[in-house]
């Protein structure tokens, strides 16, 4: 029973990590159709931001709280730069963005290696996040509770922003038909940039959060990118709700498969389940259908 609860929490926690990694993609990939392979490197940039902030501020207690918004800005600015230089000329060929951004990812990794050195670095978790909360026999590490909270806050903010604000409408409108959006009075360039900024900024936040769990190195992002895309695809492109459900489900599946088999087998099993699932629901979990023939 305890172990069941522990595993449940492990799954939720993993889900929240996946969700953080995937949330930005749900915007840039899900909404804008850009397959940004450098998303993982934006996460890495967020993580290094946390590292640098800690170096400057010193006190771990405050630096994490400073790093979160700063990571958002750093990730966002990187995204903005990418959008303004490359992506904006490629909206009509989304599959190509995958390849370009893969090149960008390679370069960013090497830049990190050259700037911060090859060895990994570490961010010290603040005092108030060390240790665990114990309920009965179940221990919930505080860092994981914190990440869960960050994920929930991000999701809530983003989905409200998308669903209920003019900004969200604009973003979705531009993605669906750039010309029509322009001729409806919406600046598509401005909206694209803003969307990409937010999506990439979320990657930065994810990166900062991840420093609580693992090390910071040039390849930090690569370990998450495949899973993050799978989450968005399985959830149904363009649907934050789907992304949330898919991330949670993937986290739980990984945790429970891993418990009963091994981590490697669990990963393969999760892939198999997703492929099978897409056989049943080829457009993912949550979809908005249209009648158009494309």
């Amino acid at each position, binding site marked *: 029973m305890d172990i069941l609860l*522990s595993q449940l929490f492990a799954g939720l926690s993993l889900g929240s990590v996946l969700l953080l990694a995937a949330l930005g993609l749900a915007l840039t990939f899900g909404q804008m159709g850009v397959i940004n392979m450098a998303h993982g490197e934006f996460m890495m940039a967020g993580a290094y931001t946390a590292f640098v902030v800690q170096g400057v501020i010193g006190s771990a207690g405050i630096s994490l709280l400073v790093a979160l918004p700063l990571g958002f800005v750093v990730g966002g600015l990187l995204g903005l730069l990418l959008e303004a230089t490359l992506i904006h000329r490629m909206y009509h060929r989304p599959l190509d963005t995958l390849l370009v951004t893969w090149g960008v990812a390679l370069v960013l990794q090497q830049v990190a290696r050259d700037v911060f050195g090859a060895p*990994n670095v570490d*961010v010290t978790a603040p005092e108030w996040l060390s240790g*665990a909360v114990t309920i009965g026999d179940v221990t919930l590490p505080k860092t994981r509770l914190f990440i869960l909270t960050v994920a929930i806050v991000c999701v809530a903010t983003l989905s409200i922003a998308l669903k209920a604000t003019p900004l969200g409408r604009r973003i979705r409108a531009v993605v669906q038909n750039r010309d029509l959006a322009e001729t409806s009075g919406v600046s598509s360039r401005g909206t694209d940039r803003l969307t990409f900024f937010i999506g990439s900024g979320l990657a930065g936040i994810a990166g900062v959060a991840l420093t609580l769990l693992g090390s910071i190195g040039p390849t930090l992002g690569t370990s998450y990118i495949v899973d993050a895309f799978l989450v968005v695809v399985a959830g149904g492109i363009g649907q934050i709700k789907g992304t949330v459900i898919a991330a949670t489900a993937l986290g739980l599946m990984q945790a429970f498969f891993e418990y009963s088999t091994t981590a490697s087998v669990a990963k393969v099993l999760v892939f198999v389940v997703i492929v099978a699932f897409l056989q049943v629901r080829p457009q993912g979990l949550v979809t908005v259908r249209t009648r158009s023939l494309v």
Partner: protein
Amino acid sequence: AQVDTAGGEPSEATGAGCVDTSGDTVKIGFLNSLSGTMAISEQTVHDSLQLAASEINADGGVLGKELEIVTEDGQSEPTVFAEKATKLITSDCVAAVFGGWTSASRKAMLPVFESQDSLLFYPVQYEGLESSPNIFYTGATTNQQIVPGLDYLAEQGVESLFLVGSDYVFPRTANKIINAYAEAHGIEVLGEEYAPLGHTDFSTIVNKVRSADADAVFNTLNGDSNVAFFKEYSNAGLGPDDMPVLSVSIAEEEIGGIGVENVEGQLTAWNYYQTVDTPENAAFVEAFQAEYGADRVTSDPMEAAYDSLYLWKGMVEKAESFDVADVQEAADGVSFDAPEGTVTVNGDNHHIAKTALIGRIGDDGLIYTEWSSDGPIEPDPFLEGYDWAEGLS
């Protein structure tokens, strides 16, 4: 059962025949991953190889010839290691190659060095069960690291173990050995978990470890995974007092990345620590930090790489020749007063005799020797001298 390494006759058209020693320089190759996932570790080895080379050159070179370094990037891919090794041997005509880290890269290069009849110096502790006339292994084999680690734990009264490792050849082989040892010594193995390389979520594995409640954890995780594992481990409230972890792949380099607070007091098994108290080490650390910065640390693979260049120098000077056959011939008994203490080449299996050191991680991120073997342990890559290991190879 020794691996059958007879790769056929070395052919005339290729091979080490092209090494040019007529001038006053001699070429050697450094082959490390400078890009890709392994760059994190291999860059440090590369640095210390460079240090050794410049020291040797400053000291008059090898047989009076200055070392000319050809650097190649293994790109963290076994295939590339094989390709670059071929290139170094056949196009650059180097007298010997230094490098490699993962067992996969070594396995990929082995047939190349055998068929081209050239020499590789491999500086990392590994899973043993291998011996090639064309490779010198300057890191520990299992009886110089894992077995002493187990001896130490047994001595401390550990009666049950949990094994955590990365999913590849070194940890799996190590755990086979550990299981055999445990069975022979009445230690219970309560669990054995593997995570894919690069795995970063250890909550499930830590859950399993916690509920197994063993006396100690034997950790053969490699690379980034260690960071995630230890952070999870300490966040879950586990520590050296409840359940110590003995690691064989985290060195000073990695501790900075894991965060000292997460591993302080945990155990490691190696043959070298930065804190080893020898004059040679003092000089090595000083030289290294002078070259690369005072914030840099030194670690076992770095030291083994540093040693490897000096050992090759010793062999060449003993043989008075750069020729591969001559060097192989002269290798046995060549020794070097290394930072870790004196190391000696075993001419039969091409490994070196090393002293095993169990260390405890201090609050400064350095590792302090807690226990050491009585002098250098002769390398025994196939564990032929251990009864309990029968049938393992």
